[in-house]
Each structure stands twice: as C-alpha cells, then as structure tokens.
C-alpha cells in the first residue's frame, strides 16, 4: 500500500493538507461513495450531515444548484463540486497520483470511466426508484386515505427487474473476463462506486426483501463474490460503520 504522504500528493502538486468538507446524509447512499474514496486515499475530511430541509435553499444551493448531497468543498484547491460521479473523478485526478485506485492511461483508463458512468446512470437511479416505491408502499400500509391508489406492484416489479438486470450485467462481465474487479487486475474507483447501493439490498431497508441475498448468491455468483471482496475492504467497512453510527444518532 502506498504511503499516506504519497497517496495524498496530487498530480498538480496539490497536497491534501487541509481537510475536505463533505456534505452528506446517512440515508442516501451517494454521499458514502465519496466517503469510501476519501478513506481509500487517506485524504483528511470532515463530514457535515445535512437535514433534507436545508438542501434546497441557501447557503447550500450555492454549493450544489441541484440541492442534493453529496457535495464537497476542497480548501486545498478552492473548488466546490457536486454530483458523486464528478466528485470521484476529481478526487482521483487531484490526489491519486500513485494510481492506487485508477489507471493513468490506455484502455483501462477509459474502461473505468465507462463503468463509473454506468453506475451513476444505470445502477443508482434504478435502485433508488425501487427504494422509493418500497418506502412508499410500506408507509401507506396504515394510511387508509391512500387506499384508492393501491396497485403499485407493477412499479415495484419494474425496478426489481432492473436491479436483477444490473447485477446480471456485472456478473456476466466478471465471468467473461475472469477478473476479480471490473477493470484490469485491481480494485478501482469504478468498483467502489457500486458499493453503497448494495447496502440497501443486504441490510435494512432490504429493498428486494430479506431473502434476496440467497438469490443474488445463486443467480449472480460472480457479482456476489465481487461485492464480498469490496465490502471486506477497510475503507468500505469504515464508511459503512460511520453511516450506521450517523443513522443511530438520529439523523
């Protein structure tokens, strides 16, 4: 493993001397993608857990015009960034000079970007829609006034199928390449970006049901083993524990 000093020295000669400020929320998985990358690279950071009510107004809207987390402020470069995918690419470019989690050039460099963009446009939104309808239908179960709008099963099915399809895409790719990770022979930011949404499958709210782990393991074994490898990483475990602690603290 690269030393901390080496790994936080950026290509533009930027040192992560001052901690980066990460705007986060324990509920949504996306901020934790960024926390994992910060942990992996040993970049110092502070976390500000936001209330949803404060996202769509100033001063936060000046950091992220879309009013969502994550967003970061990097005092080392003076930049503010938003959208987890963009933040991850920025952190890698600025601080991963030893290419611990990325590739400097060639085919792998672009291949990793393809998978990251697949995660942000193909995994996150669809896992998110499934979560929405799961939370909605469970919230409505004791609320009689909503009974007129009862059949959301087809919505749940649509996004459940999409989750299976996404796991299938990863599974088939790993089977084909015989590799342990999506790109080349090492874990990259592209693999890590998928991790937090998996938490919604393997722990509460269990958006595919509590028994889904068995289906995942049996139907998509390569993707299952890949996720196990990623979850075992120290940086990932730390983010998972930090998120649980934040949730328990009542955020």
């Amino acid at each position, binding site marked *: 493993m690269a030393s901390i000093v080496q790994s936080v020295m950026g290509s533009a000669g930027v040192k992560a001397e001052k901690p980066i400020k990460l705007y986060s929320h324990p509920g949504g998985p996306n901020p934790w993608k960024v926390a994992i990358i910060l942990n992996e690279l040993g970049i110092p950071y502070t976390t500000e857990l936001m209330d949803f009510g404060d996202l769509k107004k100033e001063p936060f809207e000046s950091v992220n015009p879309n009013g969502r987390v994550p967003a970061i402020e990097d005092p080392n470069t003076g930049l503010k960034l938003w959208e987890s995918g963009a933040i991850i690419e920025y952190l890698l470019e600025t601080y991963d000079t030893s290419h611990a989690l990325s590739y400097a050039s060639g085919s792998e460099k672009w291949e990793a970007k393809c998978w990251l963009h697949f995660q942000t446009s193909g995994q996150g939104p669809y896992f998110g829609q499934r979560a929405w309808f799961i939370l909605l239908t469970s919230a409505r179960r004791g609320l009689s006034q909503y009974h007129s709008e009862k059949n*959301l099963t087809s919505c749940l099915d649509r996004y459940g199928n999409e989750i299976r399809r996404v796991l299938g895409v990863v599974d088939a790719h790993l089977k084909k390449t015989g590799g342990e990770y999506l790109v080349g022979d090492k874990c990259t930011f592209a693999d890590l970006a998928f991790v937090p949404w998996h938490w919604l499958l393997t722990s509460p709210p269990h958006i595919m049901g509590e028994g889904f782990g068995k289906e995942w393991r049996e139907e998509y074994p390569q993707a299952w083993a890949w996720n196990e490898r990623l979850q075992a990483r120290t940086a990932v475990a730390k983010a998972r524990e930090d998120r649980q602690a934040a949730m328990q603290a009542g955020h």
Partner: protein
Amino acid sequence: MADIDLYTAGTPNGQKISCTLEELGLKYTVHKIDIAKNVQKEDWFLEINPNGRIPAIVDKTSGTPQRVFEGAAIQLYLCATYDTQHTISFPYASAEYWEMLSWLTWMQSGIGPMQGQANHFYRYAPTKIAYAITRYQTETKRLYQVLNDRLEAQRGAGQGLWLVGGKYSIADLCCFSWVNWAEWAGVETQGFAAVRTWLEVIQRRPAVRRGVEVPERFAMKEAMRTREGEEEYAKHHSNWVMQGMKEDEEKHK
C-alpha cells in the same frame, strides 16, 4: 483522419453522440441498432457494451480499437482525444472542466433516468398509473427548473445562456438532447423561459441539425403536431420498448 464506429438509435442518448461527432467534424460510420429486434443484447454487441444499450463507439483511429460505452464517457473520450482546441469542452482538470463534468453527471443520473421513467409510464406502460406518471413528470420539471435557474444565473453573471464557462459545451449538448424530447414525456416547457431560448439556439446549430437525423429521420416533433400522428408514432415506439422489456423480464425471472 478519425475512424470511428457509432452504434446508435434515434433516441435522446443516441442523438447526443451523433451531435457531438458532428460538432467535432469527425468521420464516423453509423451502425443502426434495431432495438425492436433486441440487437443490443446480441453477443457481438455486448463485446462493445456489456450493458447492452446504445450508444457505444469503437474508435479504430489509432490502430488499437478502443470501445467506449455510456454517453457521458463517450463525450468525454471524444473531447479528450479530438477537441484539442476546446471548441465544445474545457482544458482537462480546469475549474470549468469539473463544473462541466458535474452537469454531465447530473444529466445522466437525473434528467435522463427521470424523463425516461416519465416516457415509460406516460407512453409505454400498458396500465396507466397516475401516481407514477405524476411522480416522474414532476421530477423532470424539477430538474428543468434547476437547469432554468442555472441558465438565468449564468446570463445574469455575464456568462451568456450556457451552463458552464460562457460558451456552448457538451454539458449543454447532453441536457439539450433530453429537453428536445420534452413533449414526448408529456412535459411542458412553457414555464421555463431561459430553457426555451437556450433550446431554440441549440436546435439551430448546423451540427445539431445533422446529428439529430442520425441514424434515421427525427420524426417525433413533426408527428406530435397532429393527434393521429402522435398516436401512430406512440404505437410504433411502444411496441419495441415493451418487447425489449418483456425479454429482459423473462431472462431474469
């Protein structure tokens, strides 16, 4: 001279890439992917995009073929490789570059998926679920509002009616490609004055006018002028969308 294969269909995500190639004046060969026949799920295509979706490219210019899939990754690759003068992009790792990347990512994780869901529930789903139609049309409008606010703020700051850095870039182009299909999702752009002006300016760009006609005539807007045209167009497109969905469902039962 560039030697690029483009695998595409006449959808917002596909048109975004043909427009980018046109803007950069690159030579490319168009391969129309017949989604109705599920060509995108065939093994040879999965070698190019393991996700089985359009668009994707293979760049053979340097002699070693490079595949790139996912719209934003393709746009970034094309600009990094061929837009050395930064006509529609910004120097790598500049502040404008990161802002551009934020908007690209915002589009593909926001407008694209949400407007895509509005299309599904408004146009294609066999049963009309009012809740779902409203949810996704409303979310699309929320995102249009974010776009509108940004454009107005940029204009107010003397940056012109562009998302980043005072000029037209792939950030504008990728958002344009979806807003240009708003009526298909049943979303009105009436209330978004800045977006409407911005849209019309981009529509008039020669490269965009050529790009939206790839791989086939862009007939949606014309069809939407009459009730019959709209129904005919909707019927044709519903058939292939639902067929593809059904095959996916069976595969992952």
